[in-house]
């Protein structure tokens, strides 16, 4: 049974937390530091072939024919694959399967996959690609989302119910928005836009497939979603899922960029089955840029009404979302673009009208803060402007609109714990806001913004009533506890988190825990590392499983000592008798006693969300068992001669519930904040006039070096959540959101310009400064 019971947010014994909340090492830290950790491309198998992908040089074309005969004839080529051999479509959202591993009918962006070759080495595979002859009928490419909105032909995806280029449309209204116009003390209406950015994890995508002689297939892949890849492989390969094993080795970063099933996974699997040999495909950095699934560019129109005292009375949003060439998570993105804005402020009336369109560009998807970073930017800038017009301090207006804890948003989302007010206090204090905001010399400024994010949602991408997260625990006579979890550690430290929780429950040191993760043969299902769900869901499952064993161990020891169970304390690998007898044993001895009494020791734990969300179509999308809250204050310097914005420092206060390991939480806050800051001033996933990525490399896509990252100061706020694992919530995505508007608002404080269109290039800043000068 999926455990929906509450584990409570307190320490399991009477001794307080011994592991949780401490600055413990990560379970894989030294393995990574010493080069011992194995990532997908580190896997070398005997007889392994190397595969390469042939990609479309056209943004939109019909594939008329693919002739691979010359490639097949090349010495060293072992297998060639074309789209017709993998005709079944897939997509991470089961309602919108519109991707083929290799083109079957059309190519939809420059870089779309057409054919693949497996050869004895990469050089030979590359040579063979040149020998494949593809005949294309070139179609008009649609690059502008505005054009896509009004241009039904050519349809980028044909054969859908909709005969146009609209991927998804959501229009929801809560309350009566238009009625608030009359009598509003202030109505502010502006356009905003968010450009295209990408994840750029340091590890490029890689997959290795091995056919097993017993008819099974193993796939190692740099994925954040082992379980969904498992399902998709089974469907596309038409192979019983029980014959497929998917393993995620150590992962070199994801940020949402590895949370779709990708073509290379199907291609290496199919080539392995076809050739009977292991096959690896490692994408070049350029190919990673084409795979993309980055942040959706959005054109946003917001109209907010408020009272004189700053109280928001309504928010009206209209968003155009550039989806790129495929659906990916687009259905969810479209909902998230509206659903996740209704906190930390109370919106009494709210409407959003979001349309996602297809364009002939690399597909957009979920990047850290999926779907909600863009609206958050727009709204927080608008709120800042309202504060400014009304003469209210920007922090104060945010306090006045605070939605509170244990409440419900206008769109029916349940808010439990909420530490947003403390987040505001923290950044106000840390930035010396009162003394400095509005008072710094020209060119320097402070800005603030707030946000909220989900800790997973109750919407599994395929509807089912099974647990969202499961773990299995095994106790060895040596004293080692092995935890099997389907959760994907993508660098965020989820395996460490699991080890801490199990150690806490069983009174062990974390070094007594071995975590085996993301292996579909060995581990119970977890849905994957997305939507900031892992700590909350896998964490609760881990406590659930460990608590069952804890009970058994205590019972066995109590029976042995002939004391009450409450007199048995498990702590730091020792079992202590709290009764008068005052004696102890090692945890290993305790395990042996328990095994004698209960037979072989093991347990399972699971988590599923309670029923959540509004009672309307889409009302469960974005409904989370707990929301995290963040406030950022940013300090910038604007060089009025060069237009360059230097983000000097960002203070980030994040309410993560209980911080299970403050070092790791800080790392998530700082990493998110850095990534957000980079989206403002540096990064641009820019396509040129041909629809070709203008610089698909880590030279031209400018992610910050150590000399570009702002100084970061993370403040952890712990509003202990009643349902989180020991009260924890998410920390991996929330702290990105308000970085961006905080910087925008700081620029206003510094030089008086309101920038509403990202990215804030020096050229844009100079232009705005000139316009301001002309106005004055």
């Amino acid at each position, binding site marked *: 049974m999926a455990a929906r019971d509450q584990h409570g947010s307190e320490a399991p014994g009477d001794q307080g937390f011994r592991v949780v909340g401490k600055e413990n*090492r*990560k379970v*894989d*830290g*030294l*393995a*990574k*530091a*010493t*080069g*011992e*950790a*194995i*990532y997908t*491309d*580190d896997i*070398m198998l005997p007889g392994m072939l190397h595969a390469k992908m042939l990609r479309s040089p056209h943004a939109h074309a019909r594939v008329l024919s693919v002739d691979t005969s010359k490639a097949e004839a090349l010495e060293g080529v072992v297998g060639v694959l074309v789209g017709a051999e993998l005709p079944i479509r897939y997509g991470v959202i089961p309602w919108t399967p519109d991707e083929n591993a290799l083109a079957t009918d059309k190519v939809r962006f420059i870089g779309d996959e057409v054919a693949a070759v497996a050869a004895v080495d990469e*050089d030979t595979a590359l040579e063979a690609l040149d020998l494949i002859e593809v005949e294309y009928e070139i179609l008009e490419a649609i690059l502008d989302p505005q054009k896509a909105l009004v241009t039904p032909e050519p349809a980028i995806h044909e054969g859908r119910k909709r005969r146009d280029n609209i991927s998804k449309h959501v229009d929801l209204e809560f309350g009566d928005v238009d009625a608030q116009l009359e009598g509003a003390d202030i109505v502010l209406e502006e356009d905003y836009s968010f450009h295209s950015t990408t*994840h*750029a*994890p*340091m*590890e*490029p995508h890689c997959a290795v497939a091995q056919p097993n002689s017993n008819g099974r297939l193993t796939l190692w892949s740099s994925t954040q979603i082992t379980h969904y890849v498992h399902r998709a492989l089974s469907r596309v390969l038409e192979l019983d899922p029980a014959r497929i094993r998917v393993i995620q080795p*150590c*992962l*070199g*970063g*994801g*940020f949402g960029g590895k949370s779709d099933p990708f073509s290379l996974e199907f291609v290496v699997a199919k080539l392995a089955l076809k050739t009977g040999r292991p096959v690896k495909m*490692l994408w*070049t*950095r*350029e190919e990673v840029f084409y795979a993309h699934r980055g942040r959706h560019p959005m054109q946003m129109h917001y109209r907010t009404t408020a009272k004189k005292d700053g109280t928001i009375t309504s928010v009206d949003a209209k968003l155009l979302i550039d989806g790129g060439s495929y659906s990916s998570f687009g259905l969810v993105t479209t909902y998230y673009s509206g659903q996740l804005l209704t906190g930390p402020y109370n919106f009494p009336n709210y409407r959003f009208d979001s349309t996602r369109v297809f364009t002939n560009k690399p597909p957009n998807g979920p990047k850290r803060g999926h779907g909600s970073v863009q609206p958050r930017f727009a709204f927080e800038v608008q709120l800042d402007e309202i504060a400014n017009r009304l003469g209210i301090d920007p922090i104060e207006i945010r306090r006045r609109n605070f939605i509170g804890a244990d409440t419900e948003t206008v769109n029916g989302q349940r808010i439990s714990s909420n530490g947003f007010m403390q987040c505001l206090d923290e950044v106000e204090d840390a930035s010396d806001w009162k003394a400095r905001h509005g008072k710094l010399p020209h060119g320097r400024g402070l800005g603030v913004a707030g946000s909220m994010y989900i800790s997973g949602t109750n919407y599994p991408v395929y509807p089912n009533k099974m647990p969202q997260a499961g773990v299995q625990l095994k106790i060895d006579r040596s004293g080692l506890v092995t935890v099997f979890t389907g959760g994907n550690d*993508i*660098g*965020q*430290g989820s395996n460490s988190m699991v080890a801490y929780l199990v150690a806490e429950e069983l009174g062990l040191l974390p070094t007594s825990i071995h975590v085996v993760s993301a292996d579909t043969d060995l581990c119970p299902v977890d849905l994957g590392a997305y939507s900031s769900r892992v700590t909350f869901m896998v964490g609760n499952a881990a406590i659930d499983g460990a608590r069952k064993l804890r009970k058994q161990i205590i019972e066995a020891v109590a029976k042995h000592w002939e004391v009450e169970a409450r007199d048995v304390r498990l702590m730091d690998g020792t079992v202590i008798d709290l009764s008068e007898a005052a004696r102890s044993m090692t945890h290993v001895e305790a395990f042996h006693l328990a095994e004698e009494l209960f037979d072989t020791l093991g347990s399972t734990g699971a988590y599923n969300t309670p029923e959540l969300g509004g009672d309307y179509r889409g009302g469960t999308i974005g409904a989370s068992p707990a929301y995290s809250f963040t406030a950022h204050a940013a300090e910038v310097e604007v060089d009025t001669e060069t237009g360059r914005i230097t983000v000097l420092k960002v203070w980030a206060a994040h309410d993560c519930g209980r911080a299970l390991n403050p*070092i*790791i939480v*800080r*790392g998530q806050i*700082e*990493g998110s*904040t*850095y*990534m957000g800051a980079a989206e403002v001033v540096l990064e641009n996933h820019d396509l040129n006039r041909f629809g070709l990525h203008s610089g698909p*490399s*880590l*030279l031209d896509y400018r*992610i910050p*070096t*150590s*000399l570009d*990252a702002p*100084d*970061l100061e993370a403040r952890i706020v712990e509003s202990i959540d009643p349902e989180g694992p020991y009260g924890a919530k998410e920390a991996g995505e929330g702290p990105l959101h308000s970085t961006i508007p905080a910087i925008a608002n700081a620029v206003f404080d510094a030089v008086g310009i309101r920038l509403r269109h990202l990215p804030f290039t020096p050229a844009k800043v100079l232009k705005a400064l000139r316009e301001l000068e002309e106005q004055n």
Partner: protein
Amino acid sequence: MRVFRLQVNGDTVEVAAPEHWTLLEVLRYKIGLTGSKQGCDKGDCGACTVLLDGVPTLACLSLAATVETSAITTIEGLLPAHRANGGEGADPVQDAFDRCGALQCGFCQPGMILSAKALLAKNPNPTSQEIKQSLSGNLCRCTGYTQIYEAVVLAAKGEQV
């Protein structure tokens, strides 16, 4: 094919590989030292950083055929060298990175740690600006760099648990 005679982590390794292969490919795919990572293909990210005679160098832009006279240190070489010098546990820089949470996905860290190692060998008490300068050819996408700086400072202090 050419037989390369490389000095890797104190060993002399003879290995046959195609003549146009980079040091990174030979290390990873022929010698099996996969700790050096490949992130960008062409010298933009620093994940493949190794030390050539103690100097941080990009293995992805070095031909194996041009480094036969240099002493090559990869990330795998640090811990054994530390032990050979009578140390315990991991190398102090590796250890500090672990303690400070400087390792998230870990993919940039072999290169980052080697850059830090070279800095500390030259300058045992670097200022924060010197640390930033020295690491500015190693891109990290996870940390925002703060915990990496803390790790370098901790390693410089020579503290170890």
